[in-house]
């Protein structure tokens, strides 16, 4: 398993928001559904190609899904 020290992602948030199961996402991306789980747990960093396909699937820019810094918690930016 690839250790990922500094790549964070919002796949689980986007997936929950769109109501997409791991298996549906995995099928759309052509990967094993457990790979989605490893991605969400931060235990695997995708290739650039897969990262771009994930962003394209959710129809958002790459930086919305992946970041080198932890994403802020939902609601933390609301004053």
């Amino acid at each position, binding site marked *: *398993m690839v250790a990922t020290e500094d790549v964070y992602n919002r796949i689980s948030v986007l997936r929950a928001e769109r109501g997409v199961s791991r*298996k549906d996402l995995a099928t759309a991306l052509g*990967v*094993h*559904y*457990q*790979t989605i*789980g*490893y991605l969400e747990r931060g235990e695997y960093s995708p*290739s650039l190609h897969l990262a771009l396909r994930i962003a394209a699937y959710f129809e958002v820019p790459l930086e919305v899904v992946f970041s080198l810094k932890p994403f802020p918690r939902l609601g933390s930016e609301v004053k």
Partner: protein
Amino acid sequence: MSGLTPEQMERHYRTWPPRSWYATRRSRRVLAGVGGASAALGWISAVVCWYLAPSSLAMWTTFALWGAALVIYAVVYSALVGATRGVIGLAERHLDERQALERLRLQADSRRGTTIMLGAVLALVAIAVRDGDRSVVEVPTTAPFLLVYAAIATHLILPSLLAAWRMPDPPRDDDEDD
């Protein structure tokens, strides 16, 4: 089994062997240990032949040990294919990038393990044949053959054992959340 699609293959291995065989890291490591023991039987047969061949005892011991090793490893391998969800066992084209990378790492680490194993065997053989200044050592012909067979068998199964040993618990499946 080769005629099955990856989905059919996975469905098959999700019903047998039972998940309790590999659902936890501890049970996977037990499986790896049993698989390692099956490889050890091959090495034991080589040692038996080294000291006892030619004799019927050595011959039957060799047959029994290799037969047991094959049966044990066949069962363990079936469980490991299910446990690793195809990282071992499936053709490369059926793996996604994470699984392919994992397999490559397993193979690389196994190669290092095989190198260490061959060095250890060389050292042990050197110790076993040391006897004064003799340059010619009499060893039963079957012993070196069995050593080579055991080394090849270990080389072949080491990636699967390594996979079982260090595989983390996978994320829960969606259908397990219910």
